[in-house]
Protein backbone atom coordinates (compact mmCIF):
# COMPACT_ATOMS: atom_id res chain seq x y z
CA UNK A 1 0.00 0.00 0.00
CA UNK A 2 1.09 3.57 -0.73
CA UNK A 3 0.06 6.36 1.63
CA UNK A 4 -1.16 9.66 0.17
CA UNK A 5 -0.93 12.73 2.43
CA UNK A 6 -2.65 16.05 1.76
CA UNK A 7 -0.71 18.86 3.39
CA UNK A 8 -1.69 22.27 4.75
CA UNK A 9 -5.02 23.72 3.65
CA UNK A 10 -6.21 20.72 1.62
CA UNK A 11 -7.72 19.49 4.89
CA UNK A 12 -8.27 15.92 3.79
CA UNK A 13 -7.31 12.83 5.79
CA UNK A 14 -4.54 10.64 4.37
CA UNK A 15 -5.60 7.70 2.18
CA UNK A 16 -3.91 4.40 1.33
CA UNK A 17 -4.07 2.72 -2.07
CA UNK A 18 -2.41 0.06 -4.20
CA UNK A 19 -0.21 1.72 -6.83
CA UNK A 20 3.06 0.83 -8.54
CA UNK A 21 3.70 4.20 -10.17
CA UNK A 22 2.87 7.83 -9.48
CA UNK A 23 0.80 7.81 -12.67
CA UNK A 24 -1.58 5.32 -11.04
CA UNK A 25 -1.90 7.57 -7.99
CA UNK A 26 -2.67 10.52 -10.28
CA UNK A 27 -5.39 8.55 -12.05
CA UNK A 28 -7.04 7.55 -8.77
CA UNK A 29 -6.91 11.09 -7.34
CA UNK A 30 -8.37 12.61 -10.53
CA UNK A 31 -11.55 10.67 -9.83
CA UNK A 32 -12.06 12.72 -6.65
CA UNK A 33 -13.90 15.94 -7.59
CA UNK A 34 -12.99 17.61 -4.27
CA UNK A 35 -9.32 17.41 -5.26
CA UNK A 36 -9.64 18.82 -8.77
CA UNK A 37 -8.40 22.35 -8.00
CA UNK A 38 -5.70 21.12 -5.60
CA UNK A 39 -4.21 18.72 -8.17
CA UNK A 40 -3.69 21.66 -10.54
CA UNK A 41 -1.76 23.80 -8.07
CA UNK A 42 -0.02 21.28 -5.83
CA UNK A 43 3.54 20.03 -6.02
CA UNK A 44 4.22 16.36 -5.31
CA UNK A 45 6.80 14.67 -3.12
CA UNK A 46 7.60 10.96 -2.88
CA UNK A 47 9.12 10.03 0.47
CA UNK A 48 9.72 13.74 1.17
CA UNK A 49 11.58 14.48 -2.08
CA UNK A 50 9.86 16.67 -4.69
CA UNK A 51 9.38 14.91 -8.03
CA UNK A 52 8.84 16.22 -11.55
CA UNK A 53 7.50 13.24 -13.50
CA UNK A 54 4.73 10.64 -13.23
CA UNK A 55 6.98 7.71 -14.12
CA UNK A 56 8.22 7.37 -10.53
CA UNK A 57 8.01 3.73 -9.36
CA UNK A 58 6.31 3.19 -6.00
CA UNK A 59 6.63 0.32 -3.56
CA UNK A 60 4.82 -0.83 -0.46
CA UNK A 61 5.16 1.73 2.35
CA UNK A 62 6.01 4.70 0.13
CA UNK A 63 4.57 8.11 0.99
CA UNK A 64 3.22 10.54 -1.59
CA UNK A 65 2.60 14.11 -0.37
CA UNK A 66 0.63 16.89 -2.06
CA UNK A 67 1.96 20.38 -1.32
CA UNK A 68 -0.47 23.21 -2.19
CA UNK A 69 0.69 26.82 -2.80
CA UNK A 70 2.91 28.11 0.00
CA UNK A 71 3.34 31.41 1.84
CA UNK A 72 5.79 31.39 4.70
CA UNK A 73 7.04 34.40 6.58
Amino acid at each position, binding site marked *: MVRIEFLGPIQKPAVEMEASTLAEVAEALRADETLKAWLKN*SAVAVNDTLVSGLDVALKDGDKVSLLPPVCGG
Partner: protein
Amino acid sequence: MLELYDGALDVPELLKKWYEEESRGNYGAYIPFVGTVRDENGIEGLSFDIYEPILTSWFDAWQQKAAGRGALLKMAHSRGDVLLHQSSYIAAVFSPKRRVALEMIEAFVEDFKASAPIWKYDLKNGERIYAADRSTAIGGSGLLAGGDA
Protein backbone atom coordinates in the same frame (compact mmCIF):
# COMPACT_ATOMS: atom_id res chain seq x y z
CA MET B 1 20.47 26.19 11.80
CA LEU B 2 16.69 25.94 11.44
CA GLU B 3 14.56 26.58 14.52
CA LEU B 4 10.77 26.12 14.72
CA TYR B 5 8.67 27.48 17.59
CA ASP B 6 5.05 27.23 18.65
CA GLY B 7 3.58 30.75 18.50
CA ALA B 8 5.36 34.09 18.14
CA LEU B 9 9.15 34.36 18.02
CA ASP B 10 11.12 36.06 20.78
CA VAL B 11 12.98 38.32 18.35
CA PRO B 12 15.40 40.11 20.73
CA GLU B 13 16.37 36.81 22.32
CA LEU B 14 16.97 35.02 18.98
CA LEU B 15 18.97 37.87 17.46
CA LYS B 16 21.09 38.04 20.59
CA LYS B 17 21.55 34.27 20.76
CA TRP B 18 22.64 34.06 17.11
CA TYR B 19 24.97 37.04 17.52
CA GLU B 20 26.61 35.39 20.51
CA GLU B 21 26.80 31.96 18.84
CA GLU B 22 28.80 33.38 15.93
CA SER B 23 30.70 36.15 17.69
CA ARG B 24 33.98 34.25 17.41
CA GLY B 25 33.33 32.92 13.89
CA ASN B 26 35.29 35.72 12.24
CA TYR B 27 32.24 36.89 10.28
CA GLY B 28 32.40 40.54 9.28
CA ALA B 29 28.69 40.79 8.48
CA TYR B 30 25.45 39.67 10.20
CA ILE B 31 22.25 40.56 8.33
CA PRO B 32 18.93 39.52 9.86
CA PHE B 33 15.51 39.86 8.23
CA VAL B 34 12.55 39.92 10.64
CA GLY B 35 8.99 39.36 9.42
CA THR B 36 6.29 40.96 11.59
CA VAL B 37 2.49 40.58 11.36
CA ARG B 38 0.90 43.87 10.25
CA ASP B 39 -2.53 45.20 11.14
CA GLU B 40 -4.30 45.09 7.78
CA ASN B 41 -7.50 43.78 6.20
CA GLY B 42 -9.15 43.36 9.59
CA ILE B 43 -7.09 40.33 10.60
CA GLU B 44 -6.46 39.44 14.24
CA GLY B 45 -3.25 37.63 13.36
CA LEU B 46 -1.79 34.91 11.14
CA SER B 47 -1.43 31.19 11.62
CA PHE B 48 1.02 28.74 10.04
CA ASP B 49 1.27 25.05 9.16
CA ILE B 50 4.74 23.67 8.43
CA TYR B 51 5.80 20.43 6.75
CA GLU B 52 9.07 19.90 8.51
CA PRO B 53 10.79 17.10 6.49
CA ILE B 54 10.83 19.07 3.24
CA LEU B 55 11.48 22.40 4.99
CA THR B 56 14.56 20.84 6.56
CA SER B 57 15.92 19.49 3.27
CA TRP B 58 15.21 22.83 1.55
CA PHE B 59 17.08 24.66 4.32
CA ASP B 60 20.00 22.19 4.30
CA ALA B 61 20.44 22.72 0.53
CA TRP B 62 20.62 26.50 1.12
CA GLN B 63 23.07 26.02 3.98
CA GLN B 64 25.35 24.10 1.62
CA LYS B 65 25.09 26.85 -0.97
CA ALA B 66 25.95 29.44 1.71
CA ALA B 67 28.91 27.38 2.91
CA GLY B 68 30.28 27.42 -0.64
CA ARG B 69 30.58 31.23 -0.28
CA GLY B 70 31.95 31.11 3.26
CA ALA B 71 28.58 32.13 4.73
CA LEU B 72 26.22 30.70 7.33
CA LEU B 73 22.39 30.85 7.43
CA LYS B 74 20.06 30.79 10.40
CA MET B 75 16.29 30.76 10.29
CA ALA B 76 13.45 30.68 12.80
CA HIS B 77 9.73 30.31 12.03
CA SER B 78 6.51 30.03 13.99
CA ARG B 79 3.96 27.24 13.97
CA GLY B 80 0.36 28.01 14.86
CA ASP B 81 -0.97 31.45 15.75
CA VAL B 82 0.99 34.72 15.70
CA LEU B 83 -0.90 37.88 16.62
CA LEU B 84 -0.64 41.45 15.29
CA HIS B 85 2.75 43.12 15.77
CA GLN B 86 4.35 39.83 16.74
CA SER B 87 6.96 38.15 14.53
CA SER B 88 6.74 34.80 12.78
CA TYR B 89 9.94 34.70 10.73
CA ILE B 90 13.61 35.54 11.08
CA ALA B 91 16.25 34.75 8.49
CA ALA B 92 19.86 35.74 8.97
CA VAL B 93 23.10 35.48 7.05
CA PHE B 94 26.59 35.64 8.49
CA SER B 95 29.43 36.13 6.02
CA PRO B 96 33.04 37.26 6.00
CA LYS B 97 32.21 40.41 4.00
CA ARG B 98 29.00 42.40 3.44
CA ARG B 99 28.45 41.74 -0.28
CA VAL B 100 27.80 38.00 0.08
CA ALA B 101 25.44 38.54 3.02
CA LEU B 102 23.50 41.31 1.24
CA GLU B 103 23.04 39.20 -1.89
CA MET B 104 22.26 36.02 -0.03
CA ILE B 105 19.63 37.44 2.32
CA GLU B 106 17.61 38.58 -0.69
CA ALA B 107 17.95 35.35 -2.65
CA PHE B 108 17.27 33.22 0.43
CA VAL B 109 14.15 35.12 1.54
CA GLU B 110 12.73 35.19 -2.01
CA ASP B 111 13.23 31.45 -2.49
CA PHE B 112 11.78 30.88 0.98
CA LYS B 113 8.58 32.67 -0.09
CA ALA B 114 8.37 30.62 -3.30
CA SER B 115 9.42 27.17 -2.12
CA ALA B 116 9.40 26.59 1.65
CA PRO B 117 6.54 24.23 2.61
CA ILE B 118 4.73 26.59 4.97
CA TRP B 119 1.05 27.53 4.70
CA LYS B 120 -0.37 30.82 5.96
CA TYR B 121 -3.87 31.47 7.26
CA ASP B 122 -5.55 34.74 8.25
CA LEU B 123 -7.15 34.78 11.70
CA LYS B 124 -10.38 36.70 11.19
CA ASN B 125 -13.64 36.67 13.15
CA GLY B 126 -12.48 33.59 15.01
CA GLU B 127 -11.85 31.69 11.75
CA ARG B 128 -8.61 30.38 10.23
CA ILE B 129 -8.73 31.22 6.50
CA TYR B 130 -6.11 29.96 4.01
CA ALA B 131 -4.29 32.91 2.40
CA ALA B 132 -4.77 31.46 -1.10
CA ASP B 133 -4.36 34.77 -2.96
CA ARG B 134 -0.94 35.46 -1.37
CA SER B 135 0.36 31.93 -1.85
CA THR B 136 2.71 30.69 -4.58
CA ALA B 137 2.56 27.29 -6.27
CA ILE B 138 5.85 25.43 -5.81
CA GLY B 139 7.78 24.84 -9.06
CA GLY B 140 6.49 21.78 -10.91
CA SER B 141 2.99 22.00 -9.42
CA GLY B 142 0.12 20.41 -11.31
CA LEU B 143 1.93 17.16 -12.03
CA LEU B 144 -0.97 14.99 -10.90
CA ALA B 145 -3.64 16.97 -12.75
CA GLY B 146 -2.65 15.73 -16.19
CA GLY B 147 -2.94 17.62 -19.48
CA ASP B 148 -5.28 20.38 -18.32
CA ALA B 149 -2.99 21.58 -15.51
